[in-house]
């Protein structure tokens, strides 16, 4: 049927076609999906009217449960119910141990040792990586989007903390691939919030976005001007958030109750964290709360007041303010130039956070927007613009690289190639030479971070460059280009300049999945999702049928009258309605396929006539001389 869709190259067959795209906020605690419908961006609720999807996944032998139901099962099935998985994205086991040293091995899961550099959690359905678990959350959001919008998705914009490094961004993109989502762009969360806030309020000038979520903190200093959102600087901590408030309170409870952390079962630990979180939230409204927990051998009751809470979380809030100051300095902006401070993320509901941030910026805060939903809404607005639905077409987001990129040099030092807060996309080239006669390969270790020593930065990957023509030592000129794209992701290419030979580049990520691992996961997910696959392929055929129907309708409207006899027209129309009925009623893929084939057969002659006419028409536009040349 493809032949029916005759159009100029580069032009859509349907010029005013509306394409569906979604924005996804993949959060530590909660996730959301949003879309622009009839020009209005909004988050999409589930069938119970809930917008927030708790980022919790429970693995059962016969099902994968995502969301509030999984969250409710957390305590009783703590080993197989995974929450806050975002904190593990793009991280290695050794790093996690450092991150969670306060409550030694607090994560109530069993990590398995494996050959992969990526940590795996043991569940009843096998070992799961953070990428796979995130993919299950993304699948649930994608499904919600498709069901609400009733159409095939063109793609999604997925938000990430601005301070996510390359490995964490790559892991997020891998999760989307695994979930079958076409990623239009990875968008920084504060930038997304600024878009939603800025377009809504019409604010212009310099704006600070303070984004404290469940597990990450970002600060972005941005300039807003006529639809242009330019990030001047960004800073933060990709391992600091409301979860840490809970952990600090939980530690306090454990200390007060005089229990040994080692004696706690994973279920009990989960319960303490749960009570800590509840107490934290309650203290936004009341002066003090009573906490009651039944430990194995004692029933503990205690009181936590606001002042005590403040002393527990103040050190954490101070850390965020340090990042704010650095970001202002990097942006070359004074506090009094900041016109608005936009508060984003559930943890900015905490009174203490608001007090401190207001005092720091010496400004009133913008807290009138829903801090949970604003990021997803901003992502939806950009997704809508990226697929070409934005009629004004002047929304432009200019972002920066959050952390410097460097390569390891002699003595374990990091030589900066691209410094933090450089606008992206960006590319830098550097020339290297060989140090041995006949050397045909070299390896580069790329790290990310601000510190001098490679060991103090995050190792991203080793790039192995091969296939240079042999030269005597020092004669080769190897030009290595580091390219960071608009998603903030790094790629490396290399060329030997004297010969012009392009090197082959093999990437060995330090904390990421190898391409082969992702492929294996994709394959596995398809094998296990038999039923899913059937639904999916039926869905695909329905989309195909819609396309076919639309093509035949538009062709008939165009030239059906002149090219077909009444008889021919009637015959095509009849088969067309059969397909239209099958499109809605068919439960088997084959049924739909047959209906399409039938229509194809009956309209074959018509297609041929149209092609002929089209070729003649395009020749008619040219001068005869052109064909004589």
């Amino acid at each position, binding site marked *: 049927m493809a032949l029916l869709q005759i159009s100029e190259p580069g032009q859509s067959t349907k010029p005013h076609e509306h394409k569906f795209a979604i924005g996804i906020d993949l959060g530590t605690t909660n996730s959301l999906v949003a879309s622009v419908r009839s020009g209005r961006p909004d988050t999409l609720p589930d069938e119970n009217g809930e917008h927030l999807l708790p980022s919790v996944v429970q693995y059962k032998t016969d099902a994968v449960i995502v969301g509030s139901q999984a969250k409710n099962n957390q305590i009783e099935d703590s080993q197989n119910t995974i929450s806050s998985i975002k904190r593990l994205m793009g991280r290695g086991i050794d790093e996690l141990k450092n991150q969670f040293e306060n409550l030694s091995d607090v994560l109530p899961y069993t990590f398995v040792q494996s050959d992969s550099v990526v940590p795996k959690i043991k569940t009843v359905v096998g070992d799961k990586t953070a990428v796979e678990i995130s993919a299950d959350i993304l699948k649930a959001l994608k499904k919600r989007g498709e069901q609400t919008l009733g159409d095939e998705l*063109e793609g999604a914009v997925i938000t990430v903390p601005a301070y996510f490094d390359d490995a964490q961004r790559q892991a997020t993109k891998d999760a989307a691939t695994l979930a079958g989502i076409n990623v*239009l*762009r990875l968008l920084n969360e504060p930038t997304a919030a600024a878009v939603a806030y800025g377009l809504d309020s019409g604010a212009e000038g310099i704006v600070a976005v303070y984004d404290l979520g469940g597990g990450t903190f970002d600060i972005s200093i941005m300039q807003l*001007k006529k639809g*242009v959102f*330019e990030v001047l600087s960004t800073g933060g901590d990709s391992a600091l958030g409301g979860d840490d408030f809970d952990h600090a309170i939980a530690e306090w409870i454990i200390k007060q109750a005089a229990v040994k952390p080692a004696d706690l079962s994973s279920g009990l630990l989960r319960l303490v964290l749960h009570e800590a979180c509840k107490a934290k939230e309650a203290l936004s409204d009341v002066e003090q709360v009573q906490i009651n927990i039944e430990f194995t051998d004692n029933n503990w009751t205690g009181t936590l007041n606001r002042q005590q809470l403040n002393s527990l979380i103040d050190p954490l809030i*101070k850390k965020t*303010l*340090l990042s704010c*100051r*650095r970001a202002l*300095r990097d942006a070359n902006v004074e506090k009094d130039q900041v016109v608005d401070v936009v508060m984003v993320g559930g943890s900015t509901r905490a009174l203490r956070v608001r007090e401190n941030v207001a005092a720091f910026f010496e400004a009133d805060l913008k807290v009138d927007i829903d801090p949970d939903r604003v990021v997803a809404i901003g992502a939806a607005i*950009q997704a809508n*613009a*990226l*697929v*070409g639905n934005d009629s004004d077409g*002047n929304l*432009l*987001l*200019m972002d920066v690289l959050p952390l410097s990129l460097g390569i390891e040099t002699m003595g374990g030092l990091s030589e900066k190639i691209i410094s933090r807060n*450089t*606008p*992206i*996309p*960006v*590319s830098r080239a550097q020339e290297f030479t060989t140090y041995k006669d006949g050397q045909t390969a070299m390896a580069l270790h790329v790290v990310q971070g601000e510190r001098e020593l490679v060991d103090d930065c995050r190792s991203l990957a080793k790039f192995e460059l091969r296939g240079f023509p042999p030269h005597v030592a020092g004669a080769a000129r190897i030009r290595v280009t580091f*390219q960071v*794209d*608009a998603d903030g992701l790094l790629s490396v290419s290399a060329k030997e300049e004297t010969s012009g030979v392009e090197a082959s580049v093999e990437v060995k990520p330090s904390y990421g999945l190898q391409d082969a691992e992702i492929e294996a996961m994709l394959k596995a997910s398809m094998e296990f999702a038999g039923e899913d696959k059937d639904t999916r392929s039926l869905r695909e055929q329905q989309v195909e049928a819609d396309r076919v129907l639309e093509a035949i309708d538009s062709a008939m409207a165009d030239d059906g009258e002149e090219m077909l006899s009444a008889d021919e027209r009637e015959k095509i129309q009849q088969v067309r309605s059969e397909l239209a009925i099958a499109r809605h009623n068919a439960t088997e893929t084959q049924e739909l396929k047959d209906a399409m084939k039938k229509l194809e057969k009956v309209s074959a002659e018509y297609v041929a006539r149209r092609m002929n006419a089209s070729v003649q028409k395009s020749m008619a536009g040219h001068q005869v001389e052109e064909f004589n040349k």
Partner: protein
Amino acid sequence: MPNPIFKQNYFEIFSVPVSTALDLSQLKEKNHELQQQIHPDRFASSGDAEKREAMQITSLVNEAYNTLKVPVSRLQYMLTLKGVDMNGETDTSMDGAFLMQQMELREEIADVKSQADPLDVLDTMSRDLKNQAENLVLSFAEFYQQDELDKSREIVRKLQFINKAQKEVNDITEQLEDELI
């Protein structure tokens, strides 16, 4: 055929005159106008080749913007337009008085923590450095105009010194502020 933008110099890219006294708000505006056309987001539904081209062009424009935005790199770039490449240069002669002054400043920075009001002292240093840099840019403009390239070059080297000192002042200020919090 490569996009003609790759043949333009950084000033031409933004259609601004080659000058030390660049109007930064004008540069910013031109950058926004240009990015509206070329940013990869404008090509999100295009083919891979166009996407790659958009990324490369935007990378070039970003590089050009960054270079022109900062005085020392702008001046250095202006010298390359006259065939002077200062990367990896070996001739680093500099007038003795300036070097002496710089060494004294470094010592002051190193000692600043023992002062009664170190943050005030650092603020003053920072302001002095900014003034010095502005004056150097002014004299660069004169020498550059008269094709006195060696003297222009020396000024860029002085600016590099001043930038390093400024960075040190900023780092220590940051450290001290951290300790206060």
